[in-house]
């Protein structure tokens, strides 16, 4: 049984500000049904002040309590004051969270960022979701990992998993996380290894263009390679998860696909497409391919 503080229990059993906010002018959404927790944050911002806030959360007790705490903390604050709230502040407000549950507080902070971006008319994917996808299981990027390391002074891979979930699934990304941790602790700027080389899965052969060594691909060559990689790597992987992918069009270096049988409305399907599919195609075919998801 988890050791929750009385404040966590109290906010879980009597969450404040639950439900849709009818006159909200900023909404931020993070997480997904598939990942086990999700938070939708509604804000009503007037004259740069958060007049009202509410939430809807799918998740465990600490996810619900973190959301409730967040709405209480930001009401009446200016947008800038609210943005200064870190995941640690949320955890502190609750009298602390079990280490394994820190990702719940991170989710709160990310939803807040997403809502403010929406309010400011910035693109819906929060800044922290940009960058190279590190953990495919939980859709966590390098930038997100660097951020939690820095903000929470993390020193171990295990802590990173507690805070972001990255590494808590298949474990394939653990080495990558360790590398990011070491680089961050050593004070190196992240992102240096964008599009880093990954070993091609066995049996695929060397589809990858040798850097600079081979001439650019012709359209037909590219199409063939994209289709091979989709069939041999991407589709089997998605099918493992009960999903599927359909190739709709290849226009120059833009590949249009549709997801099938997955929670297509889920915010992190975007990450799946951009992260996993695009990254795999970039690794295996050509470094500047872009993937576009077409609504089914």
């Amino acid at each position: 049984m988890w050791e929750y503080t009385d404040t966590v229990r109290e906010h879980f059993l009597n969450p404040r500000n639950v439900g849709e906010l009818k006159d909200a002018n900023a909404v931020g959404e993070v997480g997904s049904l598939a990942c086990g927790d999700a938070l939708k944050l509604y804000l009503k911002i007037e004259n740069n002040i958060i007049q009202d806030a509410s939430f809807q959360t799918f998740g465990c007790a600490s996810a619900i309590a973190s959301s409730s705490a967040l709405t209480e903390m930001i009401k009446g604050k200016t947008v800038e004051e609210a943005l200064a709230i870190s995941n640690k502040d949320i955890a502190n407000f609750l009298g602390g969270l079990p280490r394994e549950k820190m990702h719940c507080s991170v989710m709160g902070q990310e939803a807040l960022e997403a809502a403010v971006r929406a309010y400011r008319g910035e693109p819906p994917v929060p800044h922290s979701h940009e960058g190279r996808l590190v953990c495919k299981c939980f859709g966590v990027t390098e930038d997100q990992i660097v951020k939690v390391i820095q903000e929470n002074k993390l020193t171990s891979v295990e802590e990173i998993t507690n805070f972001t979930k990255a590494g808590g699934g298949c474990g394939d990304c653990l080495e990558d996380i360790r590398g990011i941790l070491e680089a961050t602790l050593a004070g190196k700027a992240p992102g240096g290894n964008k599009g880093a080389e990954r070993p091609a899965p066995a049996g695929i052969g060397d589809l990858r263009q040798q850097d600079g060594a081979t001439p650019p691909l012709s359209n037909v060559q590219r199409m063939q390679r994209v289709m091979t990689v989709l069939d041999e790597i991407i589709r089997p992987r998605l099918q493992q998860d009960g999903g599927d992918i359909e190739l709709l069009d290849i226009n120059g270096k833009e590949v249009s696909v549709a997801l099938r049988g997955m929670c297509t409305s889920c915010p992190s399907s975007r990450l799946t497409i951009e992260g996993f599919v695009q990254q795999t195609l970039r690794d295996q075919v050509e470094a500047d391919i872009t993937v576009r998801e077409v609504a089914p």
Partner: protein
Amino acid sequence: MSAKTVYFDNNATTAVAPEVLEAMLPFLRDQYGNPSSMYSFAGRSQEAVARAREQTAGLIGASPEEILFTSCGTESDSTAILSALRARPEKKHFITTRVEHPAVLSLGQYLEKQGYTVSFLAVDGKGRLSLDDLAAAITKDTALVSVMFANNETGNIYPVEAIGKLCRERDVLFHVDAVQAVGKIPIDLQALPIDYLALSGHKLHAPKGVGALYVRRGAPFRPFLRGGHQERGRRAGTEAVPNIVALGAACALAAEHTSDENTRVRALRDKLQERLLAEIPEAIINGDPEQRLPNTMNISFKYVEGEAILLMLDQFGICASSGSACTSGSLEPSHVLRAMGVPFTYAHGSLRLSLSRYNTQEEVDFVTATLPKIITRLREISPYKHLADDASPGDGAACACQA
């Protein structure tokens, strides 16, 4: 928390039966003799252990010499599996399933690291094994097959008789983890082609920390614990006399109550399931209702998370389990539900209710009255609640997350 505990988590552990406690108490008080000692004071301990061995054997249709006492179900599983593999050192292949308890699953993963080839058989959407898959997996190199009698999470009962026959035909040893089955369904080892069978006291109203292993007469055996000559040299260590006496008493009681489990307890479980499904929309039963322990139900509710359900149930004194990621202490839902391909949307909201003969109709009524309110409440908090009314987004699940 409410004063009264409503205990619906009997697959996790059970209450010690009052009769069992009575039976063991003298051996915690005055009858402390070491069964190996030579005076008549100790002889009473020895007699008590012998009687417990008869009682335990009696429940499962074994003979007393085929029973050895251990410290828990896990020890019994380890002993059997390692013993069989050591007895056939030339064979390096072990077959088990993806839905085993960690007592077997982790050992399988460990053996893999030790150079064994381990096949973890897949199951279908209801958690069922395919005998054809098993037959196809067996090779000349296969030393042992280990399949659980019944699954702790779903209650699924596996066709151990058919599997055992197959193993016999192919000259492969067969171990069964029957920790969840013993005491809940009739088991007759005289009729079943099983070489080793593990059971655990605390799942059948004996205390924690005692188990037994059945080793069929003639099956190869290598001790796990070496030392003194206790258990005829097959399990060293001074016998835990009070616990063993308790296990014997619990087995004797279980023999009397197996029919009750299969009538009254089953009826309670069925009523509970029927009413929950009727009152809570977007709920599904995980597992195979056709082949299931009479006391177990595993139900999933869409759009809510298991740990949140458990904490709310706890407010009403109701004890249950969940296979959600947050309750397992890992970040992914239960390996059993994932092996079955239960969509994540349901896997995160799973709830296991497991009854015993001590549960009552009133308790079932209480849970049926309470649980729907909790699910409604959590769905009100959930951002996906509206999806329950609209068409739902593909249940196929698993965006970035993967199994």
